[in-house]
C-alpha cells in the first residue's frame, strides 16, 4: 500500500462513523474512520457500547451463582468462560476436580472452540464478500450446538461448568454422537479449505494485509490465534497446561507466512482453520481417555465455599488466553473478580494497523482479529 497517497497528505479527510450498527463490526463496536476516498488515515475504535458490569456482578452474587453470568462474557464460546471462572474459584478454594469432569470440560471447550471458529472464519469470509462459506460454517456450528444442547440443555449460554466439576455427565449415546461429529467434521475442514482458504481472490485480499510482527503482537498483548499467526509459538494449553491437556497430543499451529508475510491476515485465517483440526484431535483423544474414568463422578460438590486469598486461572479460549483473577475474603461472594480477554487487546492494535489501509481492508482486519463485542466490554 506504500505507493498509494496517504490521506493526510492531501489535507482533505472524510470522517466515517462505522458502527455501532454496521454489518461487519461484529457486534456493537464503533470505529471512527478518517478516510481520503477509499484510503484510511486512521480507524479509531470506540468501545463500551456493550458494557454490562459483569465483573461487578461477580462481587454481588455467590461463586456458584455467578456461573451463568460468565456465559455472557463471551457468548460465542461460552464454555471457556465457564471454565475460566470454575478453574479460578477451584484454585482459590483448593478444590480437586474429578478427572471425568476435566475431560468433559476439555471436550466442551474444544467443541466450543470449533463452533467459535466457525463463526470467526465464516464471518471473515463473508466480510471479504464470499457468502457461501458462512452457512457452511454455521451448519457445523449447529451440530456442535446440538451436542451442547443434549449435554446441558442450552445452545448458546450453557451454564455447564460447576465449581468442582460439571453440571451433567455425558451418556454413551452422546459419546457416539460426538465421535460421529469428529468423523464428519474432518473432511468438512478439507472442503472448507478448498472452498475459501486457497481461493485466489481471497488470498489476494488477505495476503500481506495488516501484517502484525511478532514483537508488535507481544507488545500489544495479543493472545491466542492472533499471537500465533504472528509467529509466536505460545499456547496456554501446552505451555501452562491445565485440565488434562498434558495427556493429550496436539500441535500448536503457528503462522508461517505461506501466502505472504508472517502475521498477515491470511495467516490469522489459516491458523484458525488448523486449530479446527487440532481441536478435533483433542476431542477424539478425550473421548477415548474418558472411558477409563468412573461414570457418575463428574462433580466434586463443595460443602462449604467461603475461600480466602486470591487465585489466577489461565485458560486458552477461542480468542486466546482468558485469565480469570478472583480474590476471596472468606465470604460467599468474591471480593473482586477480573477477566482478561483476548478481544480487548486485539482492539488496541487496530488503530496502529489501520493506517494506510482501505476501507475494505479495515473490515478484513477486524474480522481477522476475531473480535467479539461482549468480550471487549464485559
Amino acid at each position, binding site marked *: 500500500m506504500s505507493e498509494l497517497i496517504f490521506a493526510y497528505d492531501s489535507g482533505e479527510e472524510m470522517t*466515517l462513523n462505522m458502527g455501532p450498527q454496521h454489518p*461487519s463490526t461484529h457486534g456493537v463496536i464503533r470505529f471512527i474512520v478518517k478516510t481520503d476516498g477509499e484510503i484510511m488515515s486512521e480507524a479509531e475504535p470506540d468501545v463500551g457500547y456493550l458494557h454490562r458490569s459483569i465483573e461487578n456482578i461477580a462481587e454481588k452474587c455467590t461463586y456458584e451463582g455467578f456461573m451463568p453470568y460468565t456465559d455472557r462474557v463471551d457468548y460465542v464460546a461460552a464454555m471457556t468462560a465457564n471454565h475460566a471462572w470454575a478453574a479460578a474459584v477451584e484454585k482459590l478454594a483448593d478444590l480437586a476436580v474429578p478427572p471425568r469432569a476435566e475431560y468433559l470440560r476439555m471436550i466442551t471447550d474444544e467443541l466450543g472452540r470449533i463452533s467459535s471458529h466457525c463463526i470467526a472464519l465464516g464471518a471473515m469470509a463473508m466480510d471479504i464478500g464470499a457468502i*457461501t462459506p458462512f452457512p457452511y460454517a454455521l451448519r457445523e456450528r449447529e451440530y456442535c450446538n446440538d451436542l451442547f444442547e443434549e449435554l446441558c440443555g442450552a445452545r448458546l449460554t450453557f451454564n455447564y461448568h460447576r465449581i468442582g466439576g460439571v453440571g451433567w455427565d455425558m451418556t454413551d449415546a452422546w459419546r457416539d454422537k460426538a465421535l460421529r461429529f469428529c468423523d464428519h467434521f474432518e*473432511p468438512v475442514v478439507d472442503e472448507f479449505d478448498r472452498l475459501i482458504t486457497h481461493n485466489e481472490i481471497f488470498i489476494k485480499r488477505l495476503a500481506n494485509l495488516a501484517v502484525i510482527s511478532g514483537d508488535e503482537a507481544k507488545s500489544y498483548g495479543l493472545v491466542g490465534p492472533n499471537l500465533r499467526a504472528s509467529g509466536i509459538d505460545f499456547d496456554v494449553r501446552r505451555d501452562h497446561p491445565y485440565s488434562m491437556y498434558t495427556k493429550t497430543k496436539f500441535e500448536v499451529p503457528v503462522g508461517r507466512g505461506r501466502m505472504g508475510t508472517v502475521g498477515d491476515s491470511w495467516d490469522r485465517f489459516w491458523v484458525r482453520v488448523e486449530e479446527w483440526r487440532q481441536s478435533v484431535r483433542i476431542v477424539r483423544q478425550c473421548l477415548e481417555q474418558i472411558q477409563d474414568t468412573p461414570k457418575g463422578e463428574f462433580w466434586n460438590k463443595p460443602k462449604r465455599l467461603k475461600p480466602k486469598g486470591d487465585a489466577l486461572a489461565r485458560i486458552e479460549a477461542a480468542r486466546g488466553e482468558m485469565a480469570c483473577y478472583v480474590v476471596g475474603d472468606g465470604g460467599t461472594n468474591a471480593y473482586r473478580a477480573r477477566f482478561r480477554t483476548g478481544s480487548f487487546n486485539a482492539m488496541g492494535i487496530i488503530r496502529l494497523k489501520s493506517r494506510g489501509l*482501505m476501507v475494505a481492508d479495515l473490515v478484513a482486519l477486524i474480522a481477522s482479529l476475531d473480535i467479539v463485542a461482549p468480550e471487549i466490554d464485559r
Partner: protein
Amino acid sequence: MRGGWSLLILLAGCGGAAPPAPVRDVRPDALNVGDKLVVEGTPGAFAASAPTKVVLDGYWVRPAKRAHTELGRLELDGRAVTSELVLADIDDQAEAKLGGHLEFSGRVHVVQTVAGQARDLASSSKVLVRLDLLPRSLHRFAFELVKQHKESRLLDWLGLSLAPTPQGLMVRNLRTEFKWGAFMDKYDRPPLDNKITLAEARAGGLSDQDFRAIDRNHDQVITRHEAEAYEHAAGFAAQADLREGDLVVSVDGVPVRTADAFAAAWEKDTATVPIVVARGGQQIPAVLPRHGAPADLPDGFLLGGLLIAVGLLVLLPVGPMAGFIVVWERKVSGRMQSRIGPNRVGPQGWLQWLADGIKLIIKEDLVPAEADPILFKLSPFLAFIGLFLTFVVLPISQYLQVADLNIGLLYLLSVTSLVVVSIIMGGWASNSKWALLGGMRSAAQIISYELPASVALLTVATMTGSLSMQTIVRNQGGAPWHWNLFKSPMAFACFFIYFISALAEGNRTPFDLPEAESELVSGYNTEYSGFRFGIFPMVEWVNLFVISAVATTLFLGGWYLPHISPQQVEASGLLTQASLIVLVIGIGVFVATFLLGSIVGKPELLTMGIFLALPVMLIFGYALGAYQVTSLLMFVAKVTTLVFVIIWIRWTLPRFRVDQMMNLCWKYLIPLSFACFVATTAWVWATERQPLVQAGVAWIMFLVFGVGLLALFSAKVLRNLRKVRLLNVDKQVDFNLFY
C-alpha cells in the same frame, strides 16, 4: 468481407479526381418492401419520362449464409422523375425476385431507352453502393400496418376504394351525394314515416358502405334527415367524375398497379393530382385535389403506438422474468449453501418475488431530510430507463425484437451508461457517506469496465461487418463451431473479456463493490426505502438477463438453430399446429411434474419440471418443425445457462478490493481487449476470402477450447465430488448426523 469493401471505399475517397459518373448516389441504405429506391444522377444525366430500368450489378450476400456471396444482376422497373432523379419501387414483385433478406454491394446502372437506343448510365466503379433489403420483422409489420392505415384514410377522404383486378386498379364504392331528386323520381313521394330503406337509398345514389355508416342502429333503416346530413357533398372522386368500375391507369404521370402506389402520389406538395382512368376502352383524364388531404402526423403516432405495443410485448414479461431470476438465484444459493431456499409463497416458492415486491410497495417511501429530493427521486428512474432501453435491440428471436437498429451495438453501449449516472446520482443525492462511497466506487468501476466491454463487442462488430444485432446473429450459425466464440482465438478471449466486464458493470460478485454490504452497509442505495429501493435490485437482476442475452447474441449464435437456416425459420410460421403442440407439451411437462410431485410427496419436483420443460420443448419443437418457437426457446435456453453461470459465480467467489479491481481492468483487460481488436482486424483481412481456413480454425478452436476445456472442467468437478462424498466411502461426509 465488409472490412475490405469499406477500405476500398475509403481508398476511393482519398483518390485523385476521376471523371464524375452519371449515377452519383443511391438512397436509402436499408430498404423495406414498399420503399422507393432513389437514384441520383448528375444534372441532366437522365432523360425524363423515358422508359427506365434500374439495374443492380454486383455482390449479393445472404447474411444468413456468408458463404452464399455471389455476383449477380437485378433489374427493377424505374421511372425518371426529373433529369437527375430516378425512382424504383421495391414492391412485392421486386421482393419475390429477391427472396428475403439480402445485402447488396456493387454498381448501380440506369438503363433508358431514348429514341430507340439503349443508354446505360452507371455509377462509378469506385463508388460502391450498399443496400440492405430488410427481412420481415415486427418493425416492418408495424410499418405496413401504418401504410395501410394511411392509404385507407386517403381513400376515405377522396371518397372511393380501390380493388386490384387483373385489368388494373378498379374504382369501387364511390361516395356520391344522396340525390334527393333521383330518389323522388323513383318513388314519386316522400316516405310518410320519413324513413329510407337500403333498397331505396341505393336508388338515391347512396353506396352500401355509406348506408352502413349512417345506419347506426343497424336496423337497415335511416331517416331522410340523416341521409341529407351525411357528407352532404359527394366525395372528391365523385366530384371529379370518376365512376364505379373505372380502371386507374396512371397517377401523376406514373403508371400504378397498387393502392399503395396510388396513395404514394399524394406525398408531394402541389394543389392537384392529375390521374388517368380507363373507362370502356378509352382513357379519361381527371383531376383530384391534394390540399386538405389527411396529414401525416397521426400516422406517426400510429407507428409510435405500434412500436410501443411491440415494446410492451417484449417488456411486459420483464417484471416476472426479474422475479423468476430472483427466486431462482435464491434457490440456487440455497442449494449451494446447503439450505432449502424460498418455498413458501406460491408453488415451491416461485411467487416469492411477488410477495417481496408487494412488501416493498407498501413500505414507507422515505426521502431523507438532508437529501437532494429531486435527484434522489430521479435516480431509480434513470436506472430503470437505462436498463430497459437495452431491450429495444435484444434479438430475442428472429421477429421478437422491438427494432433492429443498424447501430444496435452502439445503442446498447450508450443506453447502459444511464445506469452509471443513476448510481452516482443516487449516491450523491442521498447525502450519506456510505452512499457516496458506493457511488464513487461505482462510477470508477463502471466507467473503467465499459472500455474493455465496448472493445470486446466492437471486435465482434469487426468480424461481422455490422453493428445490427440481427446481422450479427445471422452471420453465425446454429452449431457451436459456427459461433463467433470459436471463430478465432481473439473472439474467444473477447467473450471472457466481455463477460468479466459485464459482471463488473452489473455490480455482480466478484465486483459488487458499490453495494458491498460488509463494507458500505448497502452502498449507493443505503438511504433508499420502499419501491424506490426495490427498483435497484430489480434492475440488477434484469441486468443478468441483458448481460447474458448480449453475450448469447454476439458470441453464442443467438436464436440460431443447428442446421436450420433463417429461411426455414421464416417459412415455418409462428401460429402453426406444431407450435401449439410444443407449447402444450411444455405445459404438460410442468403439470406432470406438479402432479407427480404431489402424489409422490416431493413437491420440489416442480422446480425440476420448470427446467425440464425447456429441453423437452426444444427437442419437440425441433422434431416437429416449429422452428420459430424453437429458435425463441433456443435463445432462452442459452441465456438461462449464462444466467446460471453468473449466479454460480456470485455464490462462490469473494469480492475484489477496489485497487485490485482497477488493476484487473486497466492492466490486463483493456490492453488485452485492444490487442484482440487489432489482431481481429488483421485476422479478418487475412481470412476473408479463405472459407476453408475459417472453417478449419473454427473446428480446431471448438475442439481445443470448447470440448477440451469442458472436459478439463468436468474432470475437476468430478474429482472434487469424489473427494467430498462420492465414491470415497471411508471419508464420506455425513450430513444427516443427528436426525
